[in-house]
């Protein structure tokens, strides 16, 4: 019997090696795998590359930094590949000091590069970023009279995923804007680890509305963590 459910956070995090590229979905706090991220902080892997839409919120006096900022502040992140680095943030400080590499790219290019990795496309042309700083060092070719730049697939070693419902085959659904980067990161990583609010019996998810088919999922941890908390 296929059963992708794991029983503990330690089991969920087993084997994530130093040097791994870890994909972290979430937009704001929605669809962000915060429990798994705490598990990763606990687990200890270091020298990580994070693929994440935003490298962390602005510093707010009196508010503790979020989990991504803490992971960076522990010196465990070598590089972020992201669409936002804020100057006034933990990541911003580390980038300024030269202790953190940041590859900051357009959000749609980030999404498409991740999807390409999942879909077996090693590289593609896109007009986004042509003629800007983003294009530096990239091959340019014209299509339909527009300059386009060559972007490569962005695969991950590990994806940490936050689902609303999951079954033992690893089929997943998400709530409202909780999809965001989750389905494509699940496709793009060699090891896809899920925290799910709800565990359901096989066959309970509607077959034509499964957002992430189980083929993309390796481990599922049932953690009813409650609603996302807004930063402000």
């Amino acid at each position, binding site marked *: 019997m296929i059963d992708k459910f794991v029983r503990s956070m330690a089991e969920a995090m087993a084997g994530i090696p130093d040097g791994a590229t870890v994909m972290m979905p979430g937009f704001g706090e929605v669809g962000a795998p915060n429990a798994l991220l705490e598990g990763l902080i606990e687990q200890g892997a270091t020298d990580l590359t994070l693929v994440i839409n935003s490298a962390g919120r602005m510093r707010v006096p009196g508010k503790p930094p979020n989990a991504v900022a803490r992971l960076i502040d522990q010196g465990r992140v070598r590089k972020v590949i992201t669409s936002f680095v804020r100057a006034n943030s933990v990541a911003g400080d580390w980038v300024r000091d030269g202790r953190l590499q940041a590859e900051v790219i357009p959000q749609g290019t980030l999404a498409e590069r991740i999807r390409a990795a999942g879909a077996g496309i090693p590289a593609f042309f896109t007009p*986004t970023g042509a*003629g800007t700083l983003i294009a530096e060092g990239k091959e340019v070719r014209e299509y339909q009279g527009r300059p386009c730049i060559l972007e490569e697939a962005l695969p991950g070693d590990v994806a940490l995923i936050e689902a609303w419902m999951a079954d033992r085959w690893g089929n997943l659904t998400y709530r409202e*804007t909780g999809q*965001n980067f989750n389905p494509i990161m699940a496709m793009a990583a060699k090891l896809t680890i899920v925290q799910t609010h709800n565990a359901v019996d096989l066959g309970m998810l509607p077959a034509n509305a499964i957002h992430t088919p189980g083929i993309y999922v390796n481990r599922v941890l049932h953690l009813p963590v409650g609603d996302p908390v807004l930063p402000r």
Partner: protein
Amino acid sequence: MNETRQGFGPLTRTGMAARAAQDVPEGWYVNLGIGIPTLIADYIPPEREVVVHSENGILGMGPAPPPHQQNPWLVNASTQRVSLRPGGAFVHHADSFAMVRGGHIDLCVLGGFQVAENGDLANWAHSPTETGRQIGGAMDLAVGAKRVWVVMEHTTKDGAARLLRRCSYPLTAAGCVSRVYTNLAVLEVTPKGFVVLDMVPGLDFADLQARTGAELHRA
């Protein structure tokens, strides 16, 4: 032409949003950027159906709900709680940006730091070397939408022009802007440069030109 410099009233942020909203026709699919552009949705009359896209995966976004109806799973690209209109859909990030990059969005309205008379837009960085880099979806939207409008103050707080012959800040995208809504005027970007479509009452053309870093043309 006979007004004094003090004789005109610049639009407020909501005034700029309301002005831009007038020009959005029924049936368009629009993406409204962070800041003033987001306010435009509030000024589109409810009976005029416009479908609002949010790049985090909403097509058919509705306004902020009353507090008791807030859904913490339903946020917009500014991570504010919003609602979904009947007919709305949720999609993942690659599908959301396929709508943008595939040329399916009729209109995207962005904030701007600078717009050049050739349609170049700068709205994400003040220099090539600064640490903070907040690109987000702006480059995708600027390149992918069928039309790009920019809503911004006509000048900086220090009075420097934002409408320029060429942008001095790093570009978001080249030649993408078709129209600019400022607190002073509405300008079309044309092959000959900026054409003034509209000015706030009391402002004259010479005054507007004096606040602009590129040659203005009359409509």
